[in-house]
C-alpha cells in the first residue's frame, strides 16, 4: 500500500516537475532557496568564522579582507552571516516539519473522523487561533531557556499549526463529498488507500506551499524573538546580529551601516526566494488558477 502510494507519487511528481520548471517565479525562488541551503551546508566550511574580537579593526568598510566590513567588535560580518545561516535555516526547516506534521495529522483526523473527535479538535484549534502567537512565543521563550535550534523550533511550531489544521480539515471535508471518494467507499477500499492514494495527492501541493510559507514565518518569528533579546544562544544568528547592531548604536553611526544592513538583506533575499517559490508553485500546481 505504502509502496504503491510512493510509485504513484513519483509519477505524479515527475509530471508536476515539468510544469513547475516552466514557471519562471518558481525557478527563480527555488534557485534562491537552493543557494541558501548550500550556503548553510558548505558555507561554514569554506569561510570559517573567527569570533576573536579586535578593537583596532571595528566598523571597517567592505574590502578584500572583509567582504562586508566588520562589526562593533572588529569581527568579519560576512563570515558571521554565513555561520549564522546554518542555525537560521535549521530553525526554519524544523519548525516547518513539526508544524506541517501537527497541522496535517490533526486536520485530517478531524475532517475524516467527524463527530466528537472533530468537535474536540475544533475547540482546541479555536483556542490556539484566539490567543495571539507572538506574545505567546515570548512567554515560552522565557519559560524554557532556548539554547539550541531544536527547542527553538519546538517553541515556534507549538503555536503555528492551528490555521493549517483548519484549512486542511475544510479541504478534506469538501473532498470527502466528491465522487471519486464516494466510489472508493462503495468499492470498499481500505481507509489507508483512501488517505494515501486518493486524499494525499490532492492536498500535497497545498501542504508543500504551506511548508514554504511556514518557513518564512518561522524566520520572521525567530529573528523577532532574538531581536528582543529573549533567546540569545548563538551570537552569529541573524536576529542576534541585528540585536547587537541595534544595541551598539549602529543605527546612529553611519560607518556601521554594513553591519546593520547585511542581516536585513540576507533575511530579505531568503524571504523573497520563499515568496517567489510559493507563488510560483501555487500558479503551477493549483488547479483553480489554471483556468
Amino acid at each position, binding site marked *: 500500500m505504502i509502496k504503491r502510494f510512493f510509485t504513484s507519487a513519483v509519477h505524479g511528481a515527475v509530471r508536476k516537475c515539468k510544469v513547475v520548471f516552466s514557471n519562471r517565479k518558481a525557478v527563480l525562488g527555488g534557485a534562491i532557496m537552493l543557494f541558501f541551503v548550500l550556503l548553510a551546508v558548505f558555507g561554514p566550511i569554506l569561510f570559517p568564522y573567527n569570533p576573536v574580537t579586535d578593537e583596532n579593526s571595528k566598523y571597517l568598510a567592505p574590502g578584500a579582507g572583509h567582504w562586508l566590513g566588520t562589526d562593533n567588535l572588529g569581527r568579519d560580518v560576512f563570515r558571521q552571516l554565513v555561520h549564522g545561516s546554518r542555525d537560521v535555516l535549521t530553525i526554519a526547516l524544523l519548525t516547518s516539519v513539526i508544524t506541517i506534521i501537527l497541522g496535517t495529522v490533526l486536520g485530517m483526523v478531524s475532517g475524516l473522523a467527524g463527530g466528537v473527535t472533530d468537535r474536540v479538535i475544533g475547540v482546541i484549534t479555536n483556542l490556539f487561533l484566539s*490567543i*495571539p502567537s507572538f*506574545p505567546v512565543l515570548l512567554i515560552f521563550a522565557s519559560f524554557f531557556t532556548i539554547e539550541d535550534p531544536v527547542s527553538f523550533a519546538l517553541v515556534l511550531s507549538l503555536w503555528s499549526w492551528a490555521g493549517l489544521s483548519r484549512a486542511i480539515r475544510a479541504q478534506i471535508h469538501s473532498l470527502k463529498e466528491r465522487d471519486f471518494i464516494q466510489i472508493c467507499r462503495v468499492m470498499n477500499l481500505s481507509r489507508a488507500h483512501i488517505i494515501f492514494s486518493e486524499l494525499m495527492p490532492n492536498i500535497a501541493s497545498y501542504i508543500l506551499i504551506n511548508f514554504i510559507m511556514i518557513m518564512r514565518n518561522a524566520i520572521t518569528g525567530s529573528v523577532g524573538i532574538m531581536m*528582543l533579546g529573549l533567546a540569545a544562544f548563538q551570537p552569529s544568528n541573524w536576529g542576534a546580529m541585528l540585536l547587537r547592531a541595534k544595541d551598539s548604536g549602529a*543605527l*546612529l553611526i*553611519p560607518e556601521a551601516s554594513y553591519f*546593520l544592513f547585511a542581516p536585513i538583506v540576507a533575511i530579505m533575499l531568503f524571504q*523573497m526566494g520563499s*515568496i517567489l517559490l510559493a507563488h510560483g508553485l501555487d500558479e503551477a500546481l493549483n488547479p483553480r488558477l489554471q483556468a
Partner: protein
Amino acid sequence: MRAITSFYNKTRYFWRRLLIAFLTLVLVAVFGFLLIKLMPGNPVDTYAQTLMTERRIPFEEARALAKQMLNYDPDEKILVQLGKYIYGLLHGNLGISMRRPDITVNRLIAGFLPWTLFISSVSLFLSFIVGIFMGSHMAWKRKGVGEKAALSYIVVSGSIPDYLWGMILIFVFGVRFRIFPVQGNYDVMLEYEGWPWLLNVLYHAALPVLAYSIVQIGSWALSMRASSIGVLGDDYIYAARARGIPERIIVNRYLRRNAMLPLVTSLALSFAGLFGGSSLMESIFNYPGLGQQFSAFMGARDYFIIQGLILFMSFMIVLANLVVDSIYSLIDPRIRRST
C-alpha cells in the same frame, strides 16, 4: 410556541457561535491560569519579598497580604484557585503587578492602548484603502506594466518583516536625512493640548505608520486582486460591458464594491488583532503602546501582568470573531443553513 421555535431556527447559527465563543473564552481563561502554574518560581513569595522590604513587615504578614492582593493563593485546592481567578476576571479585575502594587493591567490598558490603537488602526485603514485600489486596478489591467510593477513591489515589501522596515526607515529618514523623529509619541516639552500638540503627535506617528503600511498594503492588494479576478468572471460585469458602460464606472461601482465584501471580514478580524500592539515595532520606535509594555514586563518576568494582557488580547479576538460571524449569518442566509 411556534414563534419561539421559528425564532430559534433562524438564530440557531448565532446561538451555536455564542456557545463556541463562550467555551473558547473559558478555555482562554484556563490557559491564562495555567500560565502562572507553569512559570518558574512562586509569584506570591516574590511579591511578599517586595512588600516585606517596602512596608517593613514580617514575611508571614507580607505573604498573607500578597495572597490577598494578587487574588491568588498557591496553598488552596487548584479548583478553588481557578474559581477565584475567574471570579476576579468576571469583576473586571485582569491582574496586578507582582512587583509594584500600583500597577494593574486595567490601568496599563487605559494608559497605553490608545497609543497602540492610534498608530496601528491608522495604518490598517490606510493600507486597506490603498490596497483595495491597487488590487482592483491590478485585476482590471491584468498582464500590464502596472501589474508587473505592483507585483514586484508586493514581493519586495513582503520580504522584509515590518519591524525591519521600521529600522530601515529610522536609518534613512531619522538619522541620515533627519526629517522625522524616531522616538516616542510626542515632544515632552509641548503642552498636552491644542493643535500644535496634535500635529506633533501625527509627526511622531509618521514613521511607525509608514513601516506598518509598507508591508500591509501589499497583502491587502494581493487579496483584493484575487477577489477581483473572481468577480471579473461574473455575468453582470460582462453585461455591463455589453451595455457600453464606461470602464471607470464598471471598476468603481461594479467591480470594487463587490470584490471588497469578503475583505471587509478580514478587516474586522485584523482590527481585533491590533489590541495587543506589536512588541517589536513599538520597542524599535520606543513608542509607549501595549506591545512595548508587554515586552518590558516580559523582560521583568512580571507574569501576572503578562497573563492579564494576553487574556485581554484573546478576548478581543474572540469577540471580533463572534461579531463578524453573527453579522455574516444575518446577511448571508446560506451560512445559516450550513453546519
